[in-house]
């Protein structure tokens, strides 16, 4: 088994209110960054996982996202990279 580092993005689902993103956008405007149209604030997770292959590591992380890491009702997730650790 090798060790893989899997990187995941979890973001608030489109269409749902993102109060934090809204507050930050407003603050950026006040600070003079008027060119920001939208800010979405999600989480970035880096997991170190033992697995037989990169593909197996991703299967495992997908299951973790479905079960625990992401809220299926309010969030979308995406595995963005998998590298050997």
């Amino acid at each position: 088994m090798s060790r893989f580092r899997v990187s995941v993005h979890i973001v608030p689902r489109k269409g749902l209110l993102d109060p934090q993103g809204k507050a930050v956008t407003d603050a950026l405007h006040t600070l003079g960054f008027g060119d920001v149209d939208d800010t979405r604030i999600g989480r970035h997770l880096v997991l170190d996982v033992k697995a037989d292959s990169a593909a197996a590591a991703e299967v495992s992380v997908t299951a973790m996202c479905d079960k625990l890491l992401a809220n299926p009702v309010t969030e979308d997730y995406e595995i963005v990279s998998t590298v050997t650790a």
Partner: protein
Amino acid sequence: MSTTSSGVQPRPGDPAITPALVAEHGITPFEYDKLLGLLGREPTFTELGIVSALWSEHCSYKHSRPVLKTLPTTAPYVLQGPGENAGVISVGDGWAVAFKIESHNHPSAVEPYQGAATGVGGILRDVFTMGARPIAMLNSLRFGSLDTPRVRWLVSGVVKGIGDYGNCIGVPTVAGDVMFDPAYEGNPLVNAMCVGIMREEELITAKAEGVGNPILAVGARTGRDGIHGASFASEDLSDENEAKRPRVQVGDPFTEKLLLEASLELIRSGHIVAIQDMGAAGLTSSSAEMAERGDVGVVIDVTKVPVREEGMTPYEILLSESQERMLVVAKRGHEDAAKAILRKWDLQAEVIGEVIAEPVYRVVEGDRIVAEFPGSRLVTECPQYHPEARESAVIAGLRATDPHAVAERSEESDASWTLCELLSSPTIASKRWIYRQYDSQVRTSTVVGPGMADAAVVRLRGTNKALALKTDCNSRYVYLDPRMGGRIAVAEAARNVACTGGRPMAITNCLNFGNPKKPEVFFQFREAVHGMGDACRALGTPVTGGNVSLYNENPQGAVFPTPTIGMVGLIDDIAHITRSSFTTPGDSIVQLGSSTNELGASEYLARVHGVTIGAVPVVDLDHEKRLVDLLLSMIAGGHVRSAHDLSEGGFAVALAECCMGDREAMLGASVDLSDVTLESERALLWGEAQGRVLVSTGAPDAVLTAAAAH
């Protein structure tokens, strides 16, 4: 904006109205016929959406209203009874208290964090739209067994949701109650109560008035969230609901805090005539109800509503349940002054409609009329049902089962084993792990916070008075005997309030039941409400409002019938505030009220033997009234150092709680029960006979004399 009728036109692209579409909207053929009669034509898609929301159980109370009408609602000090956003009572010196409880059971089952948070947000808005500043929150929770991971996930999400919302907005969460039982496995109950204060003259209602007055949408933008939440809360929870997830709404307590401050400033400013939360069924129900109360017409232009997403249809805008939004009727010519107040709080406000003389409820999209109903008949002529009621033979059988026939377990020969077993029952054990996550002290008026007494005590700044507040409901009693259980729920809340030195004044209630179309469920509903009414009349505590949550069931069955009582009591002098734990070594311990052989429906049977059986303890309402009076007079006389009512777990558990309640100063107790002769020792220790309170006193003779006189 078009204010005259030129005929309703369906929008291009709207689906055709078919029986299947009507059914999908939860409208029965009988109801559809009624709608056709009201309109004199086929409804548009938009109108179908509106009707499905307004005629949902959640908005229309179509199964419950006739029974609710039997509740007592008046007292000289009631300023606002049921029918408004919240009930209001006078507490003297020109001060008034607004309070209400509401459920968010269905949303919390699907997404516990947001479900509970938005429940708190909604009930807060109900109180501050009356003109009152929220000063306290309570929560009443019911979950399945804590042994399953799913329930633990629900609990932690719900508690965090309640905490994050209340903590952020700065209203202390001061009391509540929690019960765990497998009956709630698939259907948790999340009831939140809010209490606010105002000067009597600041009371404002949600009545649209004054032809030509502008209607404003205030606060958050309207998005696609929670569309049809109201009809969602009117169906059984099934796996299909998993697919309905996008209906979830997201709470924003920060915006709510701004909305709270801005609304109170608006109300005091004199620029507006009415204000109402856009709660369940959003813009639709808020505007229709405001028009109905004011007996006027309204016209709303959906193109003027600030939206969060592009391309929203009138249907979506009208039915969205985006949170933190208000509907305001301003005085004509004052809209700019009103907007200025909102801008100060970084809030948006747009004129979206107008009060009109013509008695119609009209929705336009620019030049096109997309929905129009004659007058307020949509609200007043909603269907009403008188379902069949029949007691379940199974439950009657459980009630008839003799609890004394349940054999003792061998471990029970050591009563301290049984005591530990009960004290470690999650329903009885300290809820500190929950309420430590709630800011119970913000506003620096919480004299008695969670865990310190039978009810919370919040002082009324600027007076010598305080409020005593508690939610309660032993639903196991209601399940086994709804009439008796309904009575006990009120009596226990009253006892809790009186133990702190408060006179029970009025209640709000949240009726959490299963599917009312099942005769067994409707029986529970009717009997429990009648039981509540009996107790309210006997104790002089009118009902000033409440909320009904039906369909709390899944394929495995319905929840225990749970009529949660939210009681408000008044303490005339803060010097009388009394806590539940023993304070002084050497004090005498006196039990007011008598122990009996009753053992049925007890936490002991549930926890130690895993059964819910037997007759529910009999509550003598006349005795309860005298007990309340006795407590208040003894407390006012300065004879009582602590008072705690006997409830789940009976005498032995109550005694242990009195010893351990103050974590920083625990005490012991020694009692001699040899004079008490009861057939059943189990009933003596663990039975839940009603009308009992443990007091500690330095003047036992005075207490005994006073008790004999009552």
